[in-house]
């Protein structure tokens, strides 16, 4: 499984766009990039997944460059309720009994 590296923490003011970058230099051809969000005292929640280029849903956007060695989760106009830990996962999550391996994540603090 590809190892991921993310910033340990980030701070942002309400209303700003937040970009969290994840490095995954040894990503394999069959690997997808998946992001989860975890609020205190709750289990992680799926946010978005992509393979290449750009993916957008109602919550976030995911930007993946052509070499796929990194990815950026973009949260538009964050609010206080977006304060959480964000995890980047890389793996062939759509195939077989593949464990979801979480790194240390990025702790995002949104300030009023």
């Amino acid at each position, binding site marked *: 499984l590809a190892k991921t590296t993310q910033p340990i923490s980030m701070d942002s003011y309400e209303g700003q766009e937040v970009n969290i970058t994840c490095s995954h230099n040894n990503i394999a051809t069959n690997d*997808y990039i*998946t992001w989860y969000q*975890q609020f205190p*005292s*709750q*289990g*992680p*929640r*799926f946010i978005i*997944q992509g393979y290449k280029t750009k993916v957008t849903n109602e919550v976030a956007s995911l930007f993946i460059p052509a070499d796929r060695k990194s990815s950026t989760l973009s949260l538009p106009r964050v609010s206080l309720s977006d304060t959480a*830990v964000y*995890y980047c996962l890389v793996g062939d*999550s*759509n*195939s*077989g*009994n*593949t*464990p*979801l*391996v*979480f790194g*240390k*994540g990025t702790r995002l603090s949104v300030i009023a």
Partner: protein
Amino acid sequence: DTAVSQTPKYLVTQMGNDKSIKCEQNLGHDTMYWYKQDSKKFLKIMFSYNNKELIINETVPNRFSPKSPDKAHLNLHINSLELGDSAVYFCASKQTENTEAFFGQGTRLTVV
């Protein structure tokens, strides 16, 4: 209806006891997981299981064992509890070919 439910939500017990945490999913998924999140908030995979294959994280002590009476349930049995077992345990489920995993609300285990 809760998609992935764990019971109990809180569990306080003495060292040396044997305890179980139950997990049920009503999503029809074929793969279930157990994770341990310790005080440092690192989310560590313990087991990955479907009706064909059990993958065990080799760092998990054999005092921990998953039991699956059917596809909708994956219970976690812990023998001879130790202080270091204190953590939040999360159950999750996923359909093999799909992207998104769903997590339970967690069980906070405190060993005294």
